[in-house]
């Protein structure tokens, strides 16, 4: 991809929607997302000297926004302590609930999601399923699985123990599997 020289005057028109979509996805609140994009542009201007032209400006700005999103998760984790695991309402066994150790054999998938990767509709369902995760689970899943943040950093950001994280990741996968089976698998077997 051709790298354009950074021209802050054009950033809003060129990258505004792209960054905003990413922010809305991660933060789920249009107002908070707008603020994050605005802060990203400002931080971009202030940090322009640090831009070395090796990546497209779009991805450079996205990287700044990514850090803003992680900061937001960190802040919201401080403000709201971890909900009781009971609230996740998963029909788990005691062992699964407190230590993430599977004790029941999960049912096989009724369909193969990989075969649906080319289908735009599948991703709509997938995105709505991630949006329906309980907030703390969603944050853990987002950092760990979507953003590829290390386990250690995810725990630090969310203020949780490695054991918490491990249970939360299992649980979010289980939620997503159920949601996909219900909303996609049953219609596309």
């Amino acid at each position, binding site marked *: 991809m051709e790298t354009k020289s950074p021209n802050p005057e054009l950033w809003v028109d060129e990258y505004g929607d792209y960054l905003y979509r990413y922010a809305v996805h991660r933060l789920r609140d249009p107002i908070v997302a707008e603020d994050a994009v605005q802060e990203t542009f400002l931080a971009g201007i202030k940090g322009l000297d640090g831009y070395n032209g090796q990546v497209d400006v779009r991805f450079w700005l996205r990287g700044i926004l990514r850090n803003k999103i992680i900061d937001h998760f960190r802040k919201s984790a401080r403000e709201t302590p971890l909900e009781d695991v009971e609230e996740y309402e998963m029909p788990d066994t005691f062992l699964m609930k407190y230590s993430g150790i599977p004790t029941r054999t999960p049912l*096989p998938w009724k369909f193969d999601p990989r075969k649906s990767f080319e289908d735009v509709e599948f991703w709509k369902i997938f995105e709505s399923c991630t949006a329906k995760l309980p907030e703390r689970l969603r944050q853990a899943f987002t950092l760990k699985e979507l953003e590829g943040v290390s386990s250690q950093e995810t725990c630090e950001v969310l203020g949780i123990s490695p054991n918490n994280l491990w249970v939360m990741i299992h649980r979010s996968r289980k939620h997503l599997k159920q949601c996909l089976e219900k909303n996609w698998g049953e219609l596309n077997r």
Partner: protein
Amino acid sequence: MWTCKRVAKSLAETHYKGLPGRKRLGLKAHMALCLVCSRYHKDAMLMQDCAKALAEREQAGNCQLPARLPEDAKERMKRQLRDVD
């Protein structure tokens, strides 16, 4: 021999493609004997593949959400960027 606990933990911590070869072997040996873990392993790999594919789509700008930055916000940001200059 790997315990179920160790399997569950390693699947939650690392992307399966990033597991070192030695670990993969340990996992595989356990999985051959334990149906619970082998199903779990499949689920974990599948969700990791989904997450990775979604992240790539997003990065390329292929989000399904038709969200657009509102015009008034754009104007406000443009003004602000000019002021910083």
